Every structure is written in C-alpha cells, then in structure tokens.
C-alpha cells in the first residue's frame, strides 16, 4: 500500500496569510517572531542580513516588511504587516537591512542581530517554503528547530546529569517532550540543548531550569501560530 502523509484538511485549505508568498512573506513573519522570542523582550534596534533569494526579492515580496512585522510580534495574517515600517517607527524600533552572502546555505536565509536596553540576540534561519521555517543558529551556537512545537533552548556547562535535570523539570510540570537534541560544543565544555514540547513550558518551569547551577542561558519560544 502507498504511504500517505499525515495531513489536516487545513494544510490544504490554509494557512490564512498575508500575501504574496508563503515562503517569502508568511515564513519571514515567523522568523521575525522567533528572533524576538530569543531576545525575550521588545527590541529597540535590529540589523537584518538577507541572503540569496531573500536579498534579491525582499522588496517585491514584502519580505522586509514581513520580517519587521514578525519582530513586532504581528501574526502572519495581520494586515498591518504591510505598514510594519511605520509601526516600527511608532514603537521605537530602529532597523537596518544588509545584503550578505552567507555561503552554502538555504537561498531564503536571514540573520538577525537585535538589541533591547540590556540584552542582545543573534539568530539565523531560513524559510523553506509553504510557511515552513528552520532556525539553525542562536547566539552563535548551531541548533535545529522549526517552531512547530514550543521550544526550550538551554546552553550551559557540560557535566553529567544535565539532561536529567531538564527532563525532571519538564516532567514535574507535566510537559511532554516531542523531540530533544543535546550536543556538546567548545571542546566538550558546553552543552547545547533543544527541547521541543507538546505544551508550552510554564514560567515556573523555566525558572527552575534557570536556577540550575550549570545553566548559563535559557530561552523559551512559543509554537508558531499558523
């Protein structure tokens, strides 16, 4: 028998989105939303490096407006995306676009550097088509997640028991893990963890994880609202 994909009727009749392109507009909004979630607060300055097709056709597709719209936390079906440059001004967000060559990466790739008063974030990702996206670098660390689940990113000292600490905190908050990836970086000194969960992790859950002695950086990203 032929293998069939798991699909919803609303994957075919949907998403509801601002045009013109699911990859260059809707996907760009999602990338902007995730960059803001990594910063964890409202940005006041952002530098956006556009690569490949994103650089070439940004204006015609409204990719630039969509990225800013996402950084302002607008949803992908909010008609105000079209006016996001004006909204950015009102909300005190300074932005700059650059065209870059990031090498052998997906043609719809973008790199964000964003700042609030006391924080900064660096995020790189790509829009894969049909509104699907992938984040592949956060704060200079290689990661991989797609925003289809609530995502928890943790960077910290690499020592025995770290995974156990995190899964323990998730279990005690009744959070079910969909996927997890744990890697060691910087000569095995640093642990980089990505947990994708069915439910968003409540504040007290992330607080407990943040309090762990080996944890250096934590970020909770909501599931993309499609």
């Amino acid at each position, binding site marked *: *028998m*032929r293998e*069939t*994909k*798991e*699909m*919803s*009727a*609303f*994957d*075919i*009749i*949907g*998403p*509801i*989105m*601002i*045009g*013109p*392109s*699911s990859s260059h*507009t*809707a996907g760009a909004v999602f990338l902007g939303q995730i960059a803001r979630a990594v910063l964890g607060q409202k940005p006041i300055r952002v530098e956006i490096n556009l690569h490949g*097709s994103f650089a*070439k*056709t*940004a*204006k*015609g*597709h*409204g990719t630039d*407006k969509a990225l800013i719209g996402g950084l302002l936390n607008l949803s992908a*079906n909010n*008609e105000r*995306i*079209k006016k996001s440059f004006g909204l950015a001004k009102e909300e005190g967000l300074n932005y700059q676009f650059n065209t870059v060559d990031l090498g052998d990466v997906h043609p719809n790739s973008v790199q964000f550097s964003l700042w609030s008063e006391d924080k900064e974030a660096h995020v790189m990702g790509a829009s894969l*088509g*049909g*509104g699907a996206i992938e984040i592949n670098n956060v704060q200079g660390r290689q990661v991989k997640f797609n925003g289809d689940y609530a995502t928890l990113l943790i960077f910290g000292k690499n020592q025995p028991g770290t995974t156990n600490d995190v899964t323990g905190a998730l279990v005690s908050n009744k959070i079910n893990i969909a996927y997890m990836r744990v890697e060691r970086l910087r000569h095995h000194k640093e642990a980089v963890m990505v947990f994708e969960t069915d439910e968003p992790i409540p504040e007290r859950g992330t607080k407990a994880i943040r309090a762990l002695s080996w944890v250096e950086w934590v970020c909770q990203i909501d599931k993309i609202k499609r």
Partner: protein
Amino acid sequence: MFASLQELVKESEKTDKSLASMVIETEMVTSGKAEVDIRLQMQKRLEIMKESAQKALDKPVRSISGISGGSAHKLWHWLDKNEAITGSVMSRALARALSVNEVNAGMGCIVATPTAGSAGILPATLITLQESHHFSDDEIVDALFVASGIGMVIVNRANVSGAMGGCQAETGSAAAMAAGASVALLGGSPRQSMQAVGITLKNMLGLVCDPVAGLVEVPCVKRNAAGVAQAFVAIDLALAGIESIIPPDEVIDAMAHIGKVMDKNLKETGLGGLAATPTGKKLAENIWNERG
C-alpha cells in the same frame, strides 16, 4: 484513504457517505476536535476568501512591486456594461480569481488554496456558484472539505509546489480541487467529481512556473483566471458523464513525473520562460535595483 482518488470513490460508494463527510470525519479523528468546531474553522476561512474575492473588485489593488494590479476592478466594471463571451457566471468567477490574487500581491489577507500563488481559483469558483445557484454557506463549506480531500491525494501522489512541480502543481491542483468540489456541490456523483479532477489536471499538465522577478504576480494573477476557466470546462464535461480515458490517479502521477523532469529554470526560480523574456528581465532589474 487519501492515497488515491479511486479509494475515495470506493469508500464513498461502500459506506454511502458523501465525500465531504468522509473528509470531515477523518479530520475529527486526526485533530480530536468536534465536527462543529471543524466546520467553524472552515467557515472562518470561507469568510476571508469572500473578502479577498471582493476587495479588488470594489477598488483597484496594486501589487507591492508596482508591476501589476487593477485587472479585477477593470473586468468587474466592464461586465456592468458588456456581455461576456464566457457568460455571466464564468466571467464573474474570472474577476473574483483576479481579485484574490491581486489582494495577495498587494500584501492583503488570503487563504492559501492550496498555495498563495493559486489562492484565487477555488474561492472564485465556489463563491460564484453560491451566487448563481443560491447555495448556503454550509454547502460551500462541504465543498471546501471535498476540495481539501482532493488536495491531500495530490500531495500524497505528487506535490502542490511550483518550486517542485511547476505551475501545473499549483494552479493545476487548485483548478482540479475547484472542479471536483464544484461537481459535488452541483449534485454530481463522487466518481464524476474525480473525473472532473482528472480532466482539469490533464488540461494543465506541463504548465511551467516562470514568475517575472520571482514574484507571485506575472503571470500568476492571470493564470488564476485561466485555472477557473479550466475548472468550468471540466465541471460541465464531468457532469455530462464524460470521463478521462486516463484514470485521474494516473493523471496525478503523470503530473508528478512531468514536475520531476521539468527544467529547474522553469520551477519558480525566475530564470526561464516569461521571466527570461526581454521585458521580464527588464522588470526584474528595475525592481531589484530599487532595493539598493
């Protein structure tokens, strides 16, 4: 169940269930939601479809790039004073298809059916049939579920992406979904619905995706009108009992194969076909340079 159109027909004949209720029941199982909520979710999409099908008729809508726009408004007002060769039903559907895609190109809100670039065909066809035949919203929602069932079979056997399969996979699939759903709406049998899918796709095989400057505008907007026309052709043929000599599932497989062997330049890269014409190149250059 969504592995083939034939399976859908067989299941429907065996269980004496409509195509729409089969799709809704499957959605209830996979989503865990009640029928009333699933129908409401589709009704919300129908409302956005109606808005986007009307918006560019009422006043001209220009694209973000500025290279296209205003066609839907032009046709709609021409129809006020002129008798369309395509008749009063189809011509109004053509205008609505243009409207949805102009709204899309102008960064307005649309429902991707199945993609943004082909979003005009299904809404334009169904909304116009609702107007001419006085169908209720509930009946149109049923038709939208039939369309999504057809779309799922196409995704399982081929794809609905211009970058993977060319325009045949986008506007071809959209038109096939519109034709199949319309036949069900107009009282045709499930078998006739699937014949309409096969006939539509057959007529759109080989259509390349060659957007000027890589934008969802030229030729996408007018190809949505063309998709509506193909759907109308197939609806009448299928309702008359005419069948595709090549079974509809095999037509979908042929589309998948053609998409695979189609040159990369003709699959949404903006490098071939209309995009590579002198005018296409000039328009692209103007847009790209403006970015600075």
